[in-house]
């Protein structure tokens, strides 16, 4: 028997807001939250910008009171999703519930801190808790501990496709009957190494990112986390849960082209999109909204546009497709988890969010990127795209449930 997987709860902590109402209203208005960075500076830059999350005090500390930021973001988003889903507290239910968390960088800040302390203090800098604090698996195991889950607990790293990959794994866990409910999400923080790396690659925006704009000049970074509560449809109906959407399925591919650059033909992306549509039985004309990867780099936006044209043909010009990274910055692995939540909200509100900061659209990116302001639209099926370093692509089909 094939199980259907539905979304019964969502949670976000993002630069655009850390509750669903604020998040949705901010992105629908096209408000850009990429601002001068407050968390840290680096001597080689006069100034840095980024999308920062303001966490309420109760969410700031990790489980052990240590300021492990990636874990704090993860716990904050998953707590919101669990509360939104009003999950029951019974032992039997929690034993059949697990968690999959994705990340690009994980607790990289812990390693940065250790690196700094090594220089100052030598070997004495390592305390007994460092190994567990820097272990990325803690991102999911602490979620499970916090909520008393006893099902499968996994951390997936698929670079900037980590969020969609986490949702895909959780979807499969439920479909194969290994759990009835899974929390799926992703989190990432702002770290100096990624700013430096993108700067050296010439891919860091000098101002703010402008996906699909003729004068786009690179990525802006953000931090955040997104989480969804996924449940077996029948189990969700039995407990009387409110069903917000259905995860119809996913498609994956890998470019295997270059460590950082996407395949310029867009072939890898095309295969992932086609697999997502084919395995979910979604005809091209059924797609009402595409949550695009849209990082704002010249190369990546072009590859994505080519892939969408290869799949949708001329219809690629008229399907609303937007990049909410234009408002929060690229939150790396967390991005596609946050964008999956945006898809659920698009279905609920029958509206699509915009691509902000657009001044003059690049004619080579011939898509309807919903410039600068969200709009009402009939939305029954969303396609959410993600691509990452190394060439891993993961696409998700999110549907409304009648």
């Amino acid at each position, binding site marked *: 028997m094939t199980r259907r997987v539905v979304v019964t709860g969502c949670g976000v902590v993002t630069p655009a807001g850390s509750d669903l109402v604020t998040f949705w209203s901010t992105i629908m208005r096209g408000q850009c939250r990429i601002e001068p960075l407050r968390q840290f500076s680096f001597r080689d830059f006069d100034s840095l910008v980024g999308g920062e999350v303001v966490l309420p005090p109760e969410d700031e500390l990790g489980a052990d009171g240590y300021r492990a930021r990636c874990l704090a973001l993860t716990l904050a988003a998953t707590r919101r999703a669990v509360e939104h889903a009003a999950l029951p507290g019974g032992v039997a239910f929690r034993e059949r519930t697990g968690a999959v968390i994705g990340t690009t960088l994980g607790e990289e800040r812990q390693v940065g801190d250790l690196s700094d302390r090594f*220089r100052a203090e030598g070997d004495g800098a390592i305390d007994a808790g460092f190994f567990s604090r820097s272990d990325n698996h803690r991102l999911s195991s602490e979620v499970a501990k916090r909520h008393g889950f006893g099902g499968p607990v996994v951390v997936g790293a698929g670079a900037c496709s980590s969020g969609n990959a986490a949702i895909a794994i959780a979807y499969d866990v439920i479909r194969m009957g290994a759990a009835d409910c899974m929390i799926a999400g992703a989190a990432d923080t702002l770290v100096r190494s990624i700013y430096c790396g993108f700067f050296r690659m010439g891919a860091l925006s000098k101002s703010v990112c402008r996906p699909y704009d003729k004068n786009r000049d690179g990525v802006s970074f953000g931090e955040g986390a997104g989480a969804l509560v996924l449940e077996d449809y029948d189990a969700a109906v039995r407990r009387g849960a409110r069903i917000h959407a259905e995860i119809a399925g996913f498609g994956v591919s890998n*470019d295997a082209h270059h460590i950082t650059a996407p395949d310029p033909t867009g072939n890898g992306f095309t295969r992932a999109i086609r697999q997502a549509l084919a395995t979910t039985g979604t005809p091209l004309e059924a797609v009402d909204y595409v949550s695009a990867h849209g990082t704002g780099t010249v190369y990546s936006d072009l590859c994505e546009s080519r892939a969408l044209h290869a799949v949708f043909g001329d219809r690629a010009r008229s399907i609303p497709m937007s990049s909410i990274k234009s408002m929060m910055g690229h939150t790396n692995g967390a991005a596609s988890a946050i964008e999956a939540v945006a898809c659920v909200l698009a279905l609920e509100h029958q509206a699509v969010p915009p691509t902000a900061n657009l001044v003059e659209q690049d004619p080579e990116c011939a898509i309807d990127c919903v410039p600068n302001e969200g709009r009402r639209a009939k939305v029954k099926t969303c396609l959410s795209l993600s691509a990452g370093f190394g060439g891993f692509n993961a696409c998700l089909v999110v549907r409304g449930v009648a």
Partner: protein
Amino acid sequence: VSAVVEITGVGLLTPLGDGREQVASALCAGQSALVPSLEAGGTGLAAIVDFEASKYANVRGLRLYNRTTRLAICAAKLALTDAMVDPTSVAPEELGLLMASTYGHLDVLLDYDRSLVESGLLRTNAALMPLAIPSAPGAMVALAFGAKAFSMTLCDSTSSSLDAIGLGARWVLEGRARACLVVAAFSASPELVRVVDRAGALAAKGDVRPFDRRASGAGLGEGAAAFVLERADHASKRGAASRGRVHGYGAAFAGKQTESKAALERACAGALRAADVSAERISLVSAGASGVPALDRAEAEALASVLGADASRVPTIAVKGALGETFDAAGAIQSVVALSSLQERRAPPIARLDEPEVPRLRYLKEEAVVDRGLALVTSIAADGTSTALVLSHGDDR
């Protein structure tokens, strides 16, 4: 389509050798690679001495990669060769990659970050940044062998490789790839050795005693293992030999250490249910016991409960006494040894086991004959994750 997935290729690199037969023979002879190491502060370290990646794989840029990535690429190459998988037999778009690596990027990240701070942005090797993220070792394996179906990394510490085998089997059955390369690797960089040692989990002088009453901690090891997974009909169509079969996978979590036994019981029950077999069919257990007393105790008690009346019949082995704790690679290495044991009908003893703390299991203290049947491979991690895999042997050669 059968729910059983064929293992058509195996690759293995350990301190005791680089082939299934060689490693199995060494283990059966009671050899242990764990020796006290100055580098590891006097604790045990099982290192692969004189590892030369170029002996195994001819991959562009190989020497620039860190040790974990090189180990992973070499194990992958061995598995692909064993499976006779190349672009003519399996198209790149049909080959997927699942990597088990939680710590494989950390040494690069430390180097990169240190250089940024000490030497500045413009004097730091920019090529290190994309290699300094958790998915990097897997991405490099996928790039090396042109795996275009998917490339994903699981960061679940000692559970990573069993999780990757379970997910790989699922994605192969679903047709997301014709063949899935599952690769698991761990190397003990000096920084990581110091960090793990400071956590207090390592036994002094390499005196690692899985399941023993006198166990006082683990020893670190390094190694890599890789599998090629295929659907039975696909494997048969291209005439690939079977090196073993994946029947079922299960996972569970315990929020408190006192609940670890129950979690592993649930993981084993899930794996047996997925395999559609009862515990009576199990003829070998390849346990994850590493010499950490609380975890070994929980694992032994869970296995005794799962096996029930058969607990005193089924041989139980634990290779970490000889090969050390290899975290991400551990479950995959346990699986290779389990497959070899079933294939050759002989299983290796548990190093330095004198007096079991939980006496109900049939721990092997010396090499023993094993019935052909199913193997149960288990893992129980300090953070509460438990995983289990049910395997069977492959074709006779």
